[in-house]
């Protein structure tokens, strides 16, 4: 990344901002005066958003709301793709939108035309919501009257009386009991409560009372969190069947009305959906451009826009800005370097792991990216923990079945490659452990190629701790490298001391367990003492805690063995329980769900624990999270249409 100042004559600043926006490569930051500058020529943030620029804010908000209403991501009304901005580039129906940049006057005319569409859409949405609410009410009343008709045959409502139906969920029957008492008090006992048979989770009653108390009764029900639906009061209840027929007809009429409104909205979407979305993006661009200048530094004659840009894009930026605009590369101060935006640059196989690597925060600019290491070790950990070839194949088949859907579900698309690599790793470890759906493979003569993890518990524990030593040591070494890259000598010293301490502790432990010759004890102890003194100098009083923490980090990797053993034992338990049935079909009916549960639990637990080991034990040694993602000042319309180079193209309105 390079820190650049884009210097432009004040008279041409609007055009320069438009070109910068269209180029879409600069991550803008507020202009700061160089350290020690007392000249007073430049003032940061002197310019403010112009009234003209501010004038786009209102249209921007309602156009985005309109696009959501008419588009697929909003209420779901209308054809799925018709309102999508992206579909507009494909040339679907609707008023044509120019490829190039349209002038402000042309854009205002389009906004004005869409204002009328907004009014119509809002009116239709309002009508739809009201009609849907009425349909719901009529549906409730109809259902209630049908049940009254079936249970009692009639609903006696004397002249001057009103009836209200109340559906009371079982969990609030106590509240209704109080309402019942209040109703009798309110009407001086001139009321009736008619029970209507209902489902197990609610009970329904019809309250009959003098009509003049309608307002008070509704207020009382509302106070108890209950809703009363006014029922039609026929002459003495003799017209109950007729009421039900009438309400059914009303329900059908309201349904037809909603279908008619939906058709009108779909027609609006078909005709104006694309236009609303594209004009919304164009207006968003205008507002963003108007908001860029207040962060710039200004003098009487010049405007300076500061920002970060990938080094490879510098040439294309200069070309995009054209003559008359200077792009000056500037050496960032330590404070500016601290706040530099971060962008990952990894080969395609590593990219799916970038979201996992940045989950706890983006690493500091200029330090090492943990993604490539995570891309190797995370699938290895999952494979080591689940370690069953059958389970790996199940996950792989599931992923292949979901491959088509992954394109339309962003989360699935992001997780798919990671899960696929983890599945392959699980198959490999399953073959090494000789496990196919627990010990089912053993019955068919499949033997472990490497170790039987149920028997070789001790070896597995040592392997897990050895992995911990290796990864924590790597983390400490990378921490020293990062310290050197950012010029922090104290951090370099501390990390190297910690690394030497860890190695010395491991050597002493191995010697104590007679796995190394006894003569290494003395030099090992001496190295530990010297390294610890160095650590004390670097970390001060927290050095002993740091060292204990590192040993704890290493032992934490024992969870690899614990979860691995648990997964293997659950697979065996599933087969053993299935085998107890003494019948193949019944045995399968028992074992298959248990294996399915083990697949789900195994992969979930292995994922969480694998990530946890990376975040807590490994990343804390060299990743300093909490930095800003590279977000270039980029035209929303240009990015949507893939038109990053629409600079200077003037289209008609």
């Amino acid at each position: 990344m390079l820190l650049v100042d884009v210097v432009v004559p004040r008279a041409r600043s609007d055009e320069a901002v438009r070109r910068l926006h269209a180029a879409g490569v600069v991550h803008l930051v507020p202009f700061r005066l160089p350290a020690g500058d007392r000249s007073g020529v430049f003032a940061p943030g002197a310019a403010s958003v112009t009234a003209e620029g501010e004038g786009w804010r209102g249209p921007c908000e309602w156009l985005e709301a309109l696009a959501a209403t008419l588009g697929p991501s909003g209420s779901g009304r209308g054809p799925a793709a018709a309102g999508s901005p992206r579909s507009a580039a494909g040339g679907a129906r609707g008023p044509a939108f120019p490829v190039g940049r349209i002038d402000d006057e042309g854009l205002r005319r389009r906004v004005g035309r869409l204002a009328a569409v907004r009014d119509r859409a809002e009116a239709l949405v309002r009508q739809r919501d009201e009609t849907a609410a009425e349909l719901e009410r009529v549906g409730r009343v109809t259902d209630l009257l049908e049940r009254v008709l079936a249970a009692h045959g009639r609903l006696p409502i004397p002249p001057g009386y009103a009836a209200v139906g109340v559906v009371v969920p079982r969990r609030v029957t106590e509240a209704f009991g109080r309402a019942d008492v209040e109703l009798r008090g309110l009407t001086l006992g001139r009321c009736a409560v008619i029970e209507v048979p209902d489902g197990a989770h609610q009970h329904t009653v019809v309250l009959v009372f003098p009509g003049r108390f309608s307002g008070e009764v509704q207020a009382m029900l509302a106070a108890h969190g209950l809703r009363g639906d006014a029922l039609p009061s026929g002459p003495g209840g003799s017209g109950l069947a007729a009421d039900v027929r009438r309400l059914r007809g009303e329900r059908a009429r309201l349904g037809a009305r909603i279908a008619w409104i939906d058709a009108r909205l779909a027609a609006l979407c078909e005709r104006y959906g694309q236009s609303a979305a594209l004009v919304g993006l164009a207006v968003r661009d205008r507002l963003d451009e108007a908001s860029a200048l207040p962060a710039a530094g200004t003098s009487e004659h010049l405007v300076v826009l500061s920002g970060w840009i990938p080094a490879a894009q510098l040439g294309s930026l200069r070309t995009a800005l054209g003559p008359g605009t200077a792009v000056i590369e500037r050496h960032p101060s330590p404070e500016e370097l601290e706040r530099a935006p971060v962008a990952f640059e990894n080969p395609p196989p590593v990219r799916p792991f970038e979201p996992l690597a940045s989950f706890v925060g983006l690493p500091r600019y200029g330090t090492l990216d943990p993604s490539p290491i995570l891309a190797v070790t995370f699938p290895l950990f999952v494979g080591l923990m689940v370690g069953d070839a059958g389970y790996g194949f199940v996950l792989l088949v599931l992923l292949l079945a979901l491959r088509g859907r992954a394109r339309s579900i962003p989360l699935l698309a992001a997780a798919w490659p990671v899960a696929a690599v983890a599945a392959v790793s699980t198959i490999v470890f399953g073959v090494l452990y000789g496990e196919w759906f627990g010990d089912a493979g053993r019955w068919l003569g499949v033997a472990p190629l490497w170790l039987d993890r149920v028997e070789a518990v001790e070896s597995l524990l040592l392997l897990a701790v050895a992995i911990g030593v290796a990864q924590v040591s790597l983390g400490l070494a990378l921490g020293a490298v990062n310290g050197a890259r950012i010029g922090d000598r104290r951090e370099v010293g501390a990390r190297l001391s910690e690394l030497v301490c860890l190695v010395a502790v491991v050597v002493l432990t191995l010697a104590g367990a007679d796995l190394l010759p006894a003569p290494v004890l003395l030099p090992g102890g001496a190295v530990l003492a010297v390294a610890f003194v160095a650590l004390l100098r670097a970390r001060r009083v927290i050095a002993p805690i740091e060292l204990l923490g590192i040993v704890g980090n290493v032992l934490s990797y024992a969870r690899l063995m614990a979860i691995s053993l648990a997964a293997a034992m659950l697979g065996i338990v599933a087969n053993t329980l299935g085998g107890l049935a003494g019948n193949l079909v019944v045995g399968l009916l028992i074992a298959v769900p248990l294996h399915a549960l083990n697949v789900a639990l195994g992969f979930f637990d292995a994922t969480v624990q694998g990530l946890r080991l990376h975040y807590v034990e490994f990343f804390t040694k060299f990743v300093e999270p909490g930095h800003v993602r590279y977000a270039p000042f980029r035209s929303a319309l240009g990015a949507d249409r893939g038109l990053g180079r629409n600079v200077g193209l003037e289209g008609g309105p």
Partner: protein
Amino acid sequence: MEDGLRFLAASIAIGVSALATGLAQSRIGAAGAGTIAEKPESIGSVFILIAIPETMVILGFVIAALILLAH
């Protein structure tokens, strides 16, 4: 008798540390859920904070394994 004492020691080592981890995680988890509700971007930090007490049960597990395997 000796085996019985070993099993008892191993179960105490992992049982007590598991209880301590559970107690700590319940407090941190409740506070973390509240934090995420107000500040969703803090989910990464909360994830790490919840994971930290797990070290206790892992250390308990290692001790239990040593007690059982060192026979």
